[in-house]
């Protein structure tokens, strides 16, 4: 066999491989830790936003039926329960948008791939700032609506 003919020239094989396999499948871009959880959260928020979008196109289409029909549907969006739903929608969109920008930076910029973990921290911080900025406004509007204040 030709493989063995050169065997005498090759150095003896080392007893142990120098490079140890990683103990856990973690710390790579998409498996384990921030890389994976950012991806999981991106999927969950994406699915939630998609199904809201389907409903939102249908409810907006009622403007074509009659003004009173549309106002009836949109009044449902002003109830406390739906008001909280809108808050969670904005929270989901906020994450999906910020992490989406992170994905673009990872894919198109070498800095992004090297510092994806740092950028995930930045995404979470900006997300918290966004939620802190929007939540008081939305909760204020929910309370005013529930108390029956005039809106316009």
């Amino acid at each position: 066999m030709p493989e063995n003919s050169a065997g005498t020239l090759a150095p003896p094989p080392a007893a142990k491989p120098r490079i140890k396999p990683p103990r856990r499948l973690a710390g790579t871009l998409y498996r384990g830790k921030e890389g994976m959880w950012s991806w999981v959260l991106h999927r969950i928020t994406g699915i939630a936003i998609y199904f809201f979008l389907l409903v939102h196109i249908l409810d907006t289409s009622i403007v074509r039926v009659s003004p009173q029909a549309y106002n009836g549907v949109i009044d449902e969006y002003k109830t406390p329960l739906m008001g909280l739903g809108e808050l969670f929608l904005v929270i989901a969109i906020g994450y999906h948008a910020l992490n989406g920008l992170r994905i673009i930076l990872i894919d198109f910029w070498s800095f992004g791939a090297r510092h994806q973990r740092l950028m995930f921290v930045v995404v979470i911080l900006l997300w918290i700032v966004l939620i802190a900025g929007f939540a008081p406004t939305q909760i204020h509007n929910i309370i005013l609506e529930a108390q029956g204040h005039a809106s316009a």
Partner: protein
Amino acid sequence: MTTETIPAPRSSYTPPRKRRVNWEKWGWLYMRISGLFLVVLIFGHLFVNLVAGNGVRAIDFAFVAGKWADPFWVVWDTLMLWLALIHGANGMRTIVNDYAHKPVIRKTLLIAILVSTAALILLGTLVIYTFDPCPSNAIAGTLPSFCKAG
């Protein structure tokens, strides 16, 4: 002894392949480009409809009619409708491809996504461009103020 035919070394061999459009590549690129636009379009939409003024409390038929009286918001909402729905549908397609292992279920879900996307884009576009801000079937007090002039 058998004689084996070994290909000549260093000869480049490329299998005959038809040049096809790489749809997955364009889908991948679409997610990123539309995503950039959607960040601006959707945050703008959320700010005007949920934050500015009285937020969600201000939305009614007259509010929508007021916005769509301006071509700026007509273009804005059309772009948002098309870009967001195709972005979402392509994302759902990826998720179905990842988790639906049975070919029949996968095909059914993909067709459902395609049909619902086409139907909603058609519906949404028709609603925006056939919108009547002063319809005759309106109950008093529901129309925008500019209808009284006509």
